C-alpha cells in the first residue's frame, strides 16, 4: 500500500513536471531556438560534477548532467528525472529507484544502474578530492571509503540495469535532496578514465547540454543535447559563457545587445541607478535566495560563553540601517533560516533592535562597562563597510569590537580555529543552502559535529539536546511526515535563537541578475533556488 502510494505520488509529479512549460503558457510560450551569451568575471574552475561547487559552475554542471531526481524548474519541489519511480522501506533506510529506460550519455552509451553506483562512489572517494563527499555520509560504507579502507560503497547496489538500491545506516529525510545535488550526477566511467584526470575540462553526461568548446580563460560553448530524455527541454540551441568579464563592462555590453545574461548581476554602486532607470526595465531579476548573512558569536570565547551577552549583542544591531548600506539588496533577518526555506518560523520575530535593553542585559551579565572583542570579516566590498556598521552599533552599548578584515580563506581559517575568532561576519563567503531543507542550516554550521577544527560552525555551538532533536526530526519519513518534520525544525531553530543565540542573523541577501530584453520566462528560472540559472528552462522570445 505504502509503496503504491509513493508510485502514484511520483507519477503525479511526473505529470506536473511535464506540465511546467504549459504553466508558463498564459504569460509567454517558451519558444525553441536561439543562441545566447552569458558573462562571468571569474573563470570557470571545473565542470566535473564531483568537484564543482561554486555558484558559477553549479548551473552549468547541472545542465550538462542528469541525476536520479531533480527539482522542477524555479521551485524547491523534487520530481523524477533519471528515475521514474522510487520506493522507501518502512524503516526509511532502503531506497530503490527504477530508472527511465533508453537514456543515453552523449557518447552514445546507455545509462545504467551501475553508472549511478560508480558515479556516487567517485564523488565520495577521497582521491577525487571533491567537496560533496560529506553529503553521502548516511550511505552504508561511506565511512570506510573516507578512511581509505574500501573502494566501493556497499550501500549502493545495481540490482539490474535499471534498478538501483541504496541502503542507509540511519534514516535520512534529506536523502532525495542529496541525490538531486550535482555531486550525485551520473557520469560514464569510460569518459572519466579517457580524460585521464582532466574530466573537469572534458565532461560527458546525459544532461540537457553538451560542452562543445572550451577556450581557457575566454569562453565555453554549450550545445543543446538533441537526444535529451526530457523531450520538451531545453529551449535554447546553445549558450556561450564568456569569462573574465568585468561586471560593469558586462552591463555596458548588455545595453548594446551583445550579452544576454550578465551572470555577476549589478555591482552594488550601480544597483539603485539601474533599478530606477527606465532603460533597464524588464532587464533586472532581483529575487530572494536560500541565504542568510549572519554574525557568529563564539560560544567558547569569553564573554560570548554567556548566553545573556549573546542575546544582548543580538539586540544591539540595527539591521535596517545595514540593509540601507547595501542599497536595499537584502531583507533584515529575524532568524537562522531564510524565508524561502521550509521550516521558516513565521511567528518568530527575532530580537528587536533595542540598545537600552541590550545594555541592561550586559549589566545583568556583569559587564556594565562593556568589553573589548574582535570581529573577522572578508576584506572585499561591501563586507568591511557592513562590519563597520556593526562595530558602531556595538560601540553604542559599550562593546569595542576591533575589525579584522582579511581574505576569504583566512576568515574561514580563523572561524574554524578553536578559541580564535570571537565574532565572524559571514557576508561574502557564499553561504547559500545546498538544498531546500532546514537541516542544511543546522548540521554543517550549528551542529556539534561541525564544531571542530577546520569546521564551519564558527559559533562553536554544541547543544547535545538540540542535536538529539535534530536527529529525531531527520528520522521522520519524507514525504509522509514532511509537514511535521518542518515544524520540528522550525521549533529547533527558534529555540536555538531564543535560548542560546549563537548567531546574529543580519539579513537575507537577494540575488540580482541582469538579462537582455529578448530573454523570456519567469524570474524564478533566472534565479532558481537550487540551480542559480536554469539553462534548461530559459528561452529566447521570438
Amino acid at each position, binding site marked *: 500500500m505504502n509503496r503504491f502510494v509513493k508510485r502514484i505520488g511520483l507519477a503525479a509529479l511526473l505529470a506536473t513536471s511535464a506540465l511546467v512549460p504549459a504553466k508558463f503558457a498564459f504569460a509567454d510560450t517558451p519558444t525553441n531556438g536561439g543562441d545566447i551569451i552569458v558573462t562571468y*568575471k*571569474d*573563470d570557470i*574552475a*571545473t565542470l*566535473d560534477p564531483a*568537484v564543482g*561547487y561554486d555558484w558559477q559552475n553549479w548551473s552549468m554542471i547541472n545542465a550538462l548532467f542528469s541525476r536520479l531526481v531533480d527539482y522542477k524548474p524555479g521551485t524547491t519541489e523534487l520530481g523524477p528525472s533519471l528515475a521514474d519511480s522510487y520506493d522507501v522501506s518502512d524503516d526509511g533506510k532502503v531506497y530503490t529507484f527504477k530508472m527511465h529506460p533508453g537514456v543515453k550519455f552523449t557518447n552514445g552509451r546507455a545509462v545504467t544502474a551501475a553508472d549511478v553506483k560508480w558515479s556516487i562512489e567517485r564523488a565520495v572517494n*577521497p*582521491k577525487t*578530492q*571533491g*567537496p*560533496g*563527499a*560529506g*553529503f553521502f*555520509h548516511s550511505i552504508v560504507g561511506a*565511512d570506510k571509503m*573516507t*578512511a*581509505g579502507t574500501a573502494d566501493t560503497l556497499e550501500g549502493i547496489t545495481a540490482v539490474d540495469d535499471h534498478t538501483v538500491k541504496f541502503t542507509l545506516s540511519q534514516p535520512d529525510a534529506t536523502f532525495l535532496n542529496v541525490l538531486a545535488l550535482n555531486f550525485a550526477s551520473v557520469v560514464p566511467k569510460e569518459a572519466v578514465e579517457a580524460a585521464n*584526470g*582532466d574530466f*573537469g*575540462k572534458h565532461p560527458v553526461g546525459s544532461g540537457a547540454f553538451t560542452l562543445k568548446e572550451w*577556450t*581557457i*580563460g*575566454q569562453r565555453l560553448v554549450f550545445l543543446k543535447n538533441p537526444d535529451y530524455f526530457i523531450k520538451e527541454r531545453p529551449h535554447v540551441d546553445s549558450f556561450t559563457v*564568456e*569569462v*573574465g*568579464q*568585468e561586471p*560593469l*563592462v558586462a552591463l*555596458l*555590453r548588455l545595453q*548594446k545587445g*551583445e550579452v544576454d545574461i550578465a551572470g555577476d548581476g549589478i555591482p552594488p554602486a550601480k544597483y539603485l541607478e539601474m533599478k530606477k532607470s527606465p532603460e533597464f526595465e524588464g532587464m533586472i531579476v532581483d529575487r530572494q535566495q536560500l541565504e542568510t548573512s549572519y554574525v557568529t558569536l563564539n560560544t567558547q570565547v569569553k564573554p560570548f560563553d554567556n548566553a545573556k551577552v549573546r542575546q544582548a549583542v543580538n539586540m544591539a544591531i540595527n539591521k535596517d540601517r545595514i540593509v540601507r548600506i547595501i542599497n536595499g539588496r537584502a531583507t533584515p533577518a529575524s532568524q537562522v533560516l531564510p524565508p524561502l526555506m521550509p521550516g521558516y518560523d513565521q511567528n518568530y520575530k527575532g530580537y528587536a533592535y533595542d540598545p537600552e535593553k541590550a545594555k541592561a542585559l550586559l549589566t545583568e551579565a556583569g559587564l556594565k562597562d562593556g568589553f573589548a572583542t574582535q570581529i573577522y570579516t572578508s576584506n572585499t566590498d561591501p563586507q568591511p563597510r557592513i562590519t563597520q556598521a556593526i562595530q558602531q552599533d556595538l560601540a553604542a552599548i559599550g562593546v569595542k569590537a576591533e575589525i579584522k578584515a582579511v*581574505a*576569504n*580563506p*583566512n576568515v*574561514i*581559517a*580563523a572561524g*574554524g*580555529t578553536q578559541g580564535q575568532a570571537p565574532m565572524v561576519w559571514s557576508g561574502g563567503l557564499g553561504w547559500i543552502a*545546498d538544498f531546500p531543507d532546514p537541516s542544511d542550516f543546522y548540521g*554543517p*554550521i550549528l551542529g556539534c*559535529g*561541525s564544531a*571542530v*577544527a*577546520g*569546521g*564551519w560552525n564558527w559559533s562553536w555551538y554544541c547543544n547535545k539536546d538540540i542535536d538529539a532533536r535534530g536527529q529525531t526530526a531527520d528520522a521522520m519519513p519524507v514525504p509522509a511526515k514532511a509537514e511535521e518534520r518542518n515544524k520540528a525544525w522550525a521549533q529547533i531553530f527558534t529555540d536555538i535563537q531564543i535560548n542560546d543565540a549563537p548567531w546574529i542573523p543580519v539579513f537575507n541577501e537577494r540575488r540580482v541578475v541582469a538579462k537582455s530584453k529578448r530573454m523570456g520566462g519567469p524570474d524564478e528560472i533566472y534565479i532558481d533556488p537550487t540551480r542559480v540559472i536554469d539553462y534548461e528552462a530559459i528561452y529566447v522570445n521570438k
Partner: protein
Amino acid sequence: MAAFLARRLVQAVLILLGVAAITFLLLYCLPADPAVLIAGRSATPQMVAAIRHELGLDQPLVMQFLHYVGNLLHGDLGRSYTQKTEVLPLILARLPATLVLMAAGIVVEVALGLTFGIIAAVRRGGFVDRAIMMLSFVGVSSPQFVVALLLLYVFAATLGWFPMSGFGTARHVVLPALTLGVLGAGWYARMVRSAMIEVLRQDYVRTAHAKGLTGRRVVLGHALPNALLPIIAMVGIDIGQFMSGVVVVEAVYGWPGIGQLAWQAIQQVDVPIIMGVTLVSALAIVLGNLLADFVAPFVDPRIRSQ
C-alpha cells in the same frame, strides 16, 4: 660574451629557486588550509584529513618543497587544487594573450615616451615641455581602472570603433595596449627627456651642430643613441612586470592573460597555480633583464669596449 651569458644563466636558475623557496614558505605560513577549502562544509574532519593526505600536505614542509622542486625539474608544475587539472596547460593557454599585450603595451609606451620625451628635451623650459611633463605626470598617476573604463566607454561603447571585450583580432589589442601604453609612457617621457637634456649639453652635440648638420640629424642620429640606455633597461623591467599580469586591464577588457589566473588562484589559495604563475613571472623578469643586458652593447659602443 659567452662567459657573461653563462654566468647570467646560472644566476637566473638560482634566482628562480630562491623565488620558489620564498613563495612556498609564504604560502605555507598562510593561516588558510587548502584542504578545508577543498573539502567543503559538508566534510567531516576525517574527510579533510584524507584530502590533506591526497595533496601531500601532511608531509613536512621540506619534503613538500623537495617534492615540488623535483617535479619542477621534470617540467611538472603540479595540479591545481580547485580546477583539478595540470597547471602548466593553464598557464600556457594564457601565455599568447599575455605576450601580445606585453609587446603591444611596450610598443605604445616606448613610441609615445620617446616622441614626447625628445620633443620636451628639445623645447626644454618652454610651454610644450611643461605641457608634456604635466601630461606625463597625469599619466603616471592615473588609476588603471579609470583610464581603462574611460577608453572603453568612449571608443568601444559610444563610438563603437573597437570591440568592448575579448581577444583574437588586432582590433581587440588596441584599447588594452593603449591603456597600458598611455599610463606607462609618462615614465618613459620623463626618462628620455632627462637623458636627452644631459646628452644635448655634450661637446660632440655642439660639434655636430657646428658641422652644419640639421637639427633633426643631430637629435635623432647623434644624441638619441646615447640616451637610449636607460630606456632599454626599463623595457627589460616592463617585460617582467607585464608578464606577471596586469590584472586590472585584463579584467576590464576581458583579456585572457595570466593576471586573471593568478588573481583567482590567490583568492582560493590554489597553491600550485600561485607557484606556477610566480615562477613564470620571475622567469620573465630574469629573461627581460637578460635581454636588456644583451641588447645594450649593440646600442652603446661604450659597453662593448669594456
